[in-house]
């Protein structure tokens, strides 16, 4: 039962609970209802966000709820220097759930420990982004019909990318998943994330995988500009790379992309990143429903 629980890390969910979210998302995909009528969800975004914030906002509205909060901390007490602790205490008194994006690693866990209402982590520093992972899994299952026994390539910034860390954690719950990591050495996946094959050339991996998950090299997370210059533009996937891809292979990306996927890929049958992002509303509706409203008329 997910009701009244927080979602801070994908590790908070069992495989059965993940499946419950994905099944509910499928049911709610084209659904508008009143499950959140008279309910208010706080959207506290200390960092810029386009897709995550707007898909949560759309999800709240499609379920009949209202929203409170701020974007980038502007025009709020945060700009006056209020601590996360005090902000969470206040909003947990006004609202039925809090969606939090924060630049510090572990901010969502701290918030969940002090909040009286469920916290949904919408990204904390370079740590976790579990709702993105749920929509990634939703896209994988929608395109491949299953998650287990797939061969999955993950490309880009695997060291600092929180979407990557959450996804790798979730995939470890599914037997038979083969993980192929493609990154420069300086941005390799930390060893603590378990067994995976390491590649440096994208071309070596394309024919072997069912899913290719691309990520942006995040300038804002690298220690300095010199480090960024060393790795920027190192991987650029274009349509010409895809001649020997499996027919059913699909390309995912948490977006925004910079130059890691050329626009000529968009027209290929392998591109799925826009449909993937669109699935975010269904997944976030499912989460809000399960955490706040499940079991109520």
């Amino acid at each position, binding site marked *: 039962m997910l009701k009244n629980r927080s979602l801070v*890390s994908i590790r908070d969910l069992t495989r059965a609970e993940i499946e419950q979210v994905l099944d509910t998302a499928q049911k709610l995909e084209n659904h508008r209802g009143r499950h959140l009528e008279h309910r208010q969800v706080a959207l506290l975004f200390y960092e810029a966000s386009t897709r995550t914030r707007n898909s949560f906002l759309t999800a709240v509205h499609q379920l009949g709820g209202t929203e409170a909060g701020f974007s980038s901390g502007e025009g709020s007490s945060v700009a006056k220097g209020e*601590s*996360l*602790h005090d902000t969470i205490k206040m909003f947990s008194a006004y609202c039925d759930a809090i969606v939090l994006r*924060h*630049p*510090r*690693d*572990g*901010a969502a*866990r*701290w918030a969940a420990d002090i909040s009286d209402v469920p916290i949904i982590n919408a990204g*904390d*520093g*370079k*740590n*976790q982004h579990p709702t993105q992972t749920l929509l990634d899994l939703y896209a994988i299952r929608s395109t491949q019909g299953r998650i287990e026994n797939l061969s999955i390539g993950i490309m880009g910034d695997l060291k600092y990318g929180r979407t990557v860390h959450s996804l790798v954690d979730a995939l470890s719950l599914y037997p038979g998943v083969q993980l192929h990591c493609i990154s420069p050495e300086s941005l390799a996946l*930390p060893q*603590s994330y378990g067994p995976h094959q390491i590649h440096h050339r994208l071309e070596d991996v394309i024919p072997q995988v069912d899913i290719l998950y691309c990520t942006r090299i995040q300038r804002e997370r690298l220690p300095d500009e010199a480090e960024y210059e060393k790795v920027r533009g190192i991987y650029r996937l274009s349509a010409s790379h895809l001649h020997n891809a499996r027919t059913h292979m699909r390309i995912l990306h948490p977006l925004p992309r910079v130059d890691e996927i050329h626009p000529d890929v968009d027209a290929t049958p392998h591109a799925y990143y826009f449909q993937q992002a669109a699935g975010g509303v269904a997944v976030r509706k499912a989460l809000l429903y399960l955490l706040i409203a499940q079991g109520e008329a």
Partner: protein
Amino acid sequence: MMREYKVYRIENGTVIDHIPHWNSLKVLDLLGLRQCHDLVTLGIGLDSKDMGRKDLVKVENRELSEEEMDKLALVAPQATINLIRNSERTSKHKVRVPDHIRGLVRCPNSGCITRHEYVPTRFDTISRDPLELRCYYCNVQFRSDELELL
């Protein structure tokens, strides 16, 4: 060749043995012994069958609290604590890094929320040999060489 060593016997107090070579200085700081007015005896680089060289600290009229023993385990994971009462050893036990550590340690991740707001730190022990901890908040895993005590 093992040499015998002699340090003052103490009547009442604690003998901390099997401290890694040179870590006795950390133990002094950790237990606040530089401010202590009782007799503190330090042995550095003593011969040890198991450790090659080891350090030893004797402190008079002092018994360690559980929190101090947890802290001690972080810089001297193989340490043994001998409690001395009326010149007799009344107990001897090995320290053990606890499964969960609250406070005591600072998270080495500069991006961790605990480094930016007042948040009491929490860690889970992932491995004891070598010592590896994971921050409860930011999930960063780190080894003893990155460990900084509060």
